[in-house]
């Protein structure tokens, strides 16, 4: 029996804000995100024994949630928009999306993140926002670490271009800029 504090069920509730943020950024709708988060928690609890002690719980949860999301997209593509579940999602998605847009309009960086290609956005979220290492992100996305790096570099260049992020020399910050 694992240590109580390491157990998935003991960490889940505290992690909900992060998981939900990741979900909203992925599907750009709060309603869909909440549904996604709930299903991810359900799956995590059902597969609790598969969580490897000593590995990052957040990375594990992000992977579960993202895989569910990818399944959803795939199902939608196969089934077409007539399928009931998609109908529900689309209806939920419309209001949610508008809400997200309203919020995003206030923040051009968030908007630019939302406009990135999915594969670039995902890696940016995991590394820059959720602070996973390249290796951990590669594990979540099930791609080689080299792919993580090339996508991440592209994502950041695109983000900088879209938002006009200042790239003026800030020498002192940079010299101290090595994070770890």
């Amino acid at each position, binding site marked *: 029996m694992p240590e109580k504090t390491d157990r998935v*069920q003991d960490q*889940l*509730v505290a992690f*909900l*804000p*992060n998981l*939900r*943020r990741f979900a*909203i*950024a992925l599907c750009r709708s709060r309603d869909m995100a*909440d549904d996604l*988060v*709930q299903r991810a*928690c*359900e799956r995590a*609890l059902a597969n*609790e024994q598969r969580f490897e002690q000593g590995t990052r719980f957040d990375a594990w949860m992000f992977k579960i949630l993202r895989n569910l999301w990818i399944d959803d997209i795939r199902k939608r593509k196969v089934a077409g928009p007539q399928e009931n579940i998609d109908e529900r999602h689309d209806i939920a998605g419309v209001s949610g999306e508008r809400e997200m847009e309203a*919020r995003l309009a206030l*923040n051009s*960086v*968030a908007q630019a*993140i939302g406009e990135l290609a999915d594969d670039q956005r995902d890696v*940016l*979220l995991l*590394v*820059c*926002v959720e602070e996973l*290492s*390249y290796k951990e992100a590669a594990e979540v996305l099930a791609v080689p670490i080299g792919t993580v*790096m*090339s996508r*991440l*570099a592209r*994502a*950041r*260049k695109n*983000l*900088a271009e879209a*938002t006009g*992020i*200042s*790239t*003026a*020399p*800030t*020498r002192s*910050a*940079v*010299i101290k*800029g*090595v*994070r*770890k």
Partner: protein
Amino acid sequence: MTEETFSDEILMRFADGELDPDMVARIERVMEIDDRLVTRVAMFIETRTQAQAALKPLLDEPVPEKLVAAVEQMIEAKRAGERVATVSVLPFGRGRIARPPSRSQWMLPIAASLAAAVVGALAGYWAAGTNERTRGGLWVAGVIRPALAQALATVESGKEIRLAGISDRFRAIATFRNDSRDLCREFEVDSQDRSTVVSVACRSGDEWRVSFAVVAPGDAGGYAPASSTEALDAYLSAIEAGAPMSAEEEIKALAEVRQKGAK
């Protein structure tokens, strides 16, 4: 000094702290003299900082109560399931004639599902018999018929009676309180033509409600085999059943039930 050239990826790794110390030192040396390099590195640092800042509000947003409640409920259900599945600690021993655990090998893994499913199966058990049996069913959807209710309110643990109007034998096993402090009774009912039902009923308002029952396989008459009591033990530990009451406590508690019922 010749200026080294670095790829975007290398600079990004530098900015993200994903480079080995030697490479970090090399880049830092060049940055001392190359402002363009500084600018390129700054872009990677800035995008990280800005992306984080941009999505910070989403993190601060309160998680909808509905979602939290749903997740908490799932966790609680999971924990309850684990408690049911863990039968290593029994709430209290029972003075039954233990039989060789031939059935327990397969009974135990399904104890958890049994505990959840048995109540629903009850109606089926009693309804599956003859018409007479159906009419005389002891409970429907967990609500107990008068004959059984009377027995629950009167028969002391360890005693056995024949239920009024039905030829089934009723045996009171123990009286205790569950985690909600409701009065509960563990009992068994033998029918003449069927096996024994091991059951728990708890007071809910002014009535008894069956919260657990398992049909013990094998011959009727006599005590339920050990396998069915393992499911019961699992259930009792899930509802955090208190220790069985002493004879005096039980008499008092049952008297209270009868008083309330008479009002």
